[in-house]
């Protein structure tokens, strides 16, 4: 049971501590000791973060070592940047970098604006009920697993039994082996991503649109702006901050979109277009056991992501005064 004094102080102290930490060390320690049970709650999660998030960061040093499982991380000898040099000089370096960049760049150019367009359509539909249907239906594929999505691609695009090729043949064309053709890999990968995720990604824009001040629409209407102009000059500017945030977050993961799906879609016939850094790390690192080498490649990947994130965030802050931090 707490003393009456403690309780009285808790009331005052709680609000005050929220704003400023006391300069005096003794007071701070007392504040902390009083809330020891909150730290107790944090014990397990923080332990988890240290072990499973920061532990791998510690293990990342094998990127600069010649790691052998027998010796362990610490005892393996340092090799400097050898692993990186080996990667940069390898014949597949250009291919991996090119595929990783183009898949993600095209994803961004094509797939990023579509949820925004969908949200605008949803917002402009006069019938609310129809709009709800549109939302609910476009969400469905989001909840399916990558395995199921790639399975659907397999049967849907099949040269023998799929309806797409049936249509091509009915129109007098030759069936196309979509999934075994390097030139079709990227369009199919990106197209099916759009199919799966556009509804889900549009939610956030729909929410943002509902927050746009209705008076702005009225004013624009008074000024004789057409519906299309109202969308362009009122709706779109109203959600720019959200768009910028989503763009920054996307670019922060620029190098690792859709790794599992690429892995599932990959085969010997389309490897020319589907070999990306993350799948290479998996096949070479985990399947072949070249840990140090692929840890270095993974680090290279993460560093590029981080640099892109920082650059874009900085750029966004300058241009639109919206940023992550």
């Amino acid at each position, binding site marked *: 049971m707490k003393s009456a004094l403690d*309780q009285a102080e808790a*009331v005052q102290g*709680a*609000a005050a*501590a*929220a704003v400023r930490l006391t300069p005096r060390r003794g007071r701070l320690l007392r*504040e902390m000791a009083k*809330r020891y049970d*909150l730290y107790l*709650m*944090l014990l*397990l*999660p*923080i332990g*988890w*973060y240290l072990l*499973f998030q920061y*532990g*791998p960061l510690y*293990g990342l040093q094998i990127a600069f070592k010649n790691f052998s499982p027998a010796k362990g991380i610490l005892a393996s000898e340092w090799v400097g940047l050898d692993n990186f040099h080996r990667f940069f000089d390898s014949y597949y370096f250009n291919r991996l970098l090119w595929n990783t960049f183009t898949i993600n760049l095209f994803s961004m150019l094509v797939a990023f604006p579509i949820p925004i367009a969908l949200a605008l*359509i949803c917002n402009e*539909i006069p019938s609310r009920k*129809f709009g709800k*249907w549109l939302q*609910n*239906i*476009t*969400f*469905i594929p989001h*909840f*399916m*697993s990558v*395995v*199921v999505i*790639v*399975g*659907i691609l*397999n*049967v*849907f695009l099949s040269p*023998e*039994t799929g*309806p797409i090729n*049936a249509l091509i043949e009915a129109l007098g064309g030759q069936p196309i082996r979509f999934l075994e053709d390097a030139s079709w890999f990227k369009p199919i990968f990106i197209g099916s991503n759009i*199919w799966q995720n556009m*509804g889900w990604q549009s*939610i956030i824009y729909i*929410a*943002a649109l509902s927050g746009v001040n209705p008076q702005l629409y009225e004013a624009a209407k008074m000024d004789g702006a057409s*519906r*299309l102009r109202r969308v362009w000059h009122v709706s779109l500017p109203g959600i720019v901050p959200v768009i910028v945030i989503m763009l920054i977050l996307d670019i922060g993961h620029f190098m690792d979109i859709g*790794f*599992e799906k690429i892995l*599932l879609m990959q085969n010997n016939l389309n490897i020319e277009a589907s070999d990306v850094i993350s799948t290479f*790390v998996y096949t070479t*690192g*985990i399947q072949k056991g070249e840990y140090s080498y692929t840890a270095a490649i993974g680090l290279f990947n*993460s560093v590029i*992501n981080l640099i892109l*994130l920082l650059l874009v965030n900085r750029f966004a802050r300058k241009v639109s005064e919206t940023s992550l931090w």
Partner: protein
Amino acid sequence: MSKQAAASKPSDERWFDAIVYILAALVMAAVLYPLIFVISASFSDPAKVLGGEVWLLPKNVSMAAYQNILHNRDIWNGYLNTIIYAAIGTAINMIMTILAAYPLSRPDLPGRKLIMVVITLTMFFSGGLIPTYLLVKNLGMVNTLWALIVPGAIATYNLIVMRTYFQTSIPWELQEAAHMDGCSNWRMLWNIILPLSKPILAVMVLFYAVGHWNSFFNALIYIRDESKYPLQIVLREILMISQSDAVDANVGLESKVLLAESIKYAVIIVSSLPMLILYPFVQRHFVKGVMIGSIKG
């Protein structure tokens, strides 16, 4: 909108409406068509499916594929494993996320800013696949269900969403009042915070459970025994590594190929069934989750 109102609209407004409706209908058709195709094919006579005759509605309705799945032990074993992994995994996810989110939502906790920075940093930079794999291996978790559960015990994004909810939806005055009455922090969490946070808890359970249900990569790298395979790995073998072993051995070779092909459609349906059944009931919770997340995201 009434008919008169629609008629009184200027013609460019009506054109605009028409175009919006057409675009919306096209999007809906494009999303639904592949799903309808798979459902129809799964209920069709395998010979018709293989002949490429099914394109919208089932031809010669047949349950052969489903009957075959009924006898496939791998699928049911995978189903059972996935249910176990998802149940234990989600429980651990929830405990860990709540234990982290509640203290960090307290404005009076010294050091919470620092802890938040430590946590948020992991969203932008991580050790990557190989060091994580080696860690899990060194901890002796390979080929156990812990490898599927423990490394992903907390999703930082979910943690931040839950913390935001605790901060914004539960009045701080309420907690202060409870403190004055001598309520401990554990009791506060259990008796006040959690009962008041049911919506966000439901959303988080759904997010985590769907994640477990759909995940396949961790099992791919960590699980060696076939008897421990989750559903998604079994699915991958049937769908992608097309093999006729999945089919009952009592039929001839030709019908074996037929069934191996048609079983694919039914397997897609069966494995997505729990989600599809739950979907109408839970989808607005999902939407709510994204909305809450977007407040401070």
